[in-house]
């Protein structure tokens, strides 16, 4: 099952999924909006073994991430968890800072022109801004929800994937992209 639900609907969805007698072994669900923060709200019991697709998990084993998670917990409490959207917001500020430093200006247009190729060693790994469309090249991950409520990587693209927001690189999308 490929689940694109957002927000609270996920809670009702996974409760009914369990009530219908389905399990992750019988019919696994890949979700694109369930991060560590949401696992608590949906209930770990309702999610164990399910898959998610993101670019970051709290369990990523790197010095940059360990420092990020430790600093986050020190500020917001040991019980809190980090998630991909948090990490993305955190990283974007550093990217902006790098652009400002490269442009040596706070003007929007100058920053925009300086964006191409700006790179940052984020908790998720190195990310780089694409000069053509201003999306960033990131590493894709698929993770599995564990009983401790955290998500562990089960597959990784290995290296950052160049952004293709307008679906130019896919045969099936021919005619869709303008």
């Amino acid at each position, binding site marked *: 099952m490929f689940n694109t639900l957002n927000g609270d609907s996920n809670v009702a969805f996974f409760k009914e999924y369990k009530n219908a007698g389905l399990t992750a072994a019988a019919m696994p669900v890949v979700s694109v909006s369930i991060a560590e923060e949401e696992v608590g709200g949906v209930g770990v019991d309702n999610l164990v073994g399910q898959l998610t697709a993101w670019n970051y998990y709290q369990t990523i084993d790197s010095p940059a991430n360990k420092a990020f998670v430790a600093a986050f917990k020190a500020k917001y409490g040991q019980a809190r968890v980090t998630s991909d959207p948090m990490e993305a917001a955190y990283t974007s500020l550093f990217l902006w800072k790098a652009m400002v430093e490269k442009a040596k200006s706070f003007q929007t247009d100058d920053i925009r022109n300086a964006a191409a190729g700006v790179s940052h060693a984020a908790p998720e790994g190195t990310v780089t801004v694409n000069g053509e469309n201003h999306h960033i090249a990131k590493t894709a991950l698929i993770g599995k929800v564990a009983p401790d409520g955290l998500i562990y990587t089960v597959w990784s693209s290995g290296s950052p994937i160049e952004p293709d927001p307008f679906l130019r690189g896919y045969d099936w999308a021919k005619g*869709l*992209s*303008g």
Partner: protein
Amino acid sequence: MTALASRLKGNQGVLLGFVLGALALLVVAPAMLSDFRLSLFGRFICYAIVAVGIGLAWGRGGMLILGQGVFFGLGGYVMAMHLKLADAGPSGVPDFMRLYGSGQLPIWWEPFRSPVLTLLGVVLIPSLVAFGLGAAIFRRRVRGAYFAILSQALAAAFAILLIGQVATIGGFNGLNGFRSFFGYNLFDPVNKRMLFYIAAVTLLVLLLIVWQLYRSRYGELLVAVRDQEERVRFLGYDPASIKLVAYVLAAAMAGIAGALFVPIVGIISPANVGVVASITFLIGVAIGGRATLFGPVLGALAVAGAQTTLSESFPSFWSYFQGALFVLVVAFLPGGLSSLGLLLRSQRVGVRTGHIEPPSPAQRVDVGRPPPPEPLSGVRSRSEAGR
């Protein structure tokens, strides 16, 4: 401004209010504010335009309209559809439709390629919806709480409808990413300033119209319907049509405000039209004085300004503050801040106009046909001021 207006009796005071308002909006604000703040102020003016309509229907007409977001949204979406089509080119299709849908333009989008039909639609579509709904509801004498709840349910239904239609109207994300406004580049600061002037002038013109309405026979009838609907009926008037006019006008104003909101803010989404957005329009009106001419406008501007200032520095405090405003103003100062002066003055001479009569038993029981709205403190003196 309002206090001053009520002190200078008659038209002079109101005219002075208009002159001061025009000066503040058209001269002082553009000179003092940065481009960013001016655009923010333009957004507040859109809310103020909605507030003028609410003041008419709620303050003068006694109809608690909790669904103005619907008409705001209808006007806004009509404008947004036109801007999307204009950006896409003569035979183009808006970008999101290719991403989420079939890439085919639905037939009901076609009329909004035309700028003329769009401008007509901004006013006429909200008016027609309000007319249809209002005619049905008022004719059957559904009013009071029932009317309020139905209007709120309308807002909920409308937002849900929009969220469900990703492929044809943008769903939860709404419509955004407009590049031009009737041929003018929306990224150009000069054009952004022009939008502010358009909004400000629209607000002043609509206020003038409403002022003339308040001074007319119709304005008197509307207040009469609010205070004693049955008596007006016995006198041979039709309260349903009197209320309908105010409801439709309020809807049209909300539609115009929504259409201005779209190019100024750059997005319209279900969050701007739903239950919460709709009821938020009311607080400024209640604070400013729902039955006054300038009160709703000043209240709406003040609340929007306070929201921006407070939530910039204390994000969670704003919710408490907004909640407390609703509680304190509506429970203890139903005439709004503009009644404060009158209240104090009357207390000094020992007469409390703010006092409200205790309810009669029949009024307490019968919810379906609720009691006539209580006289608002200071309403009369203000309607005299507007004469």
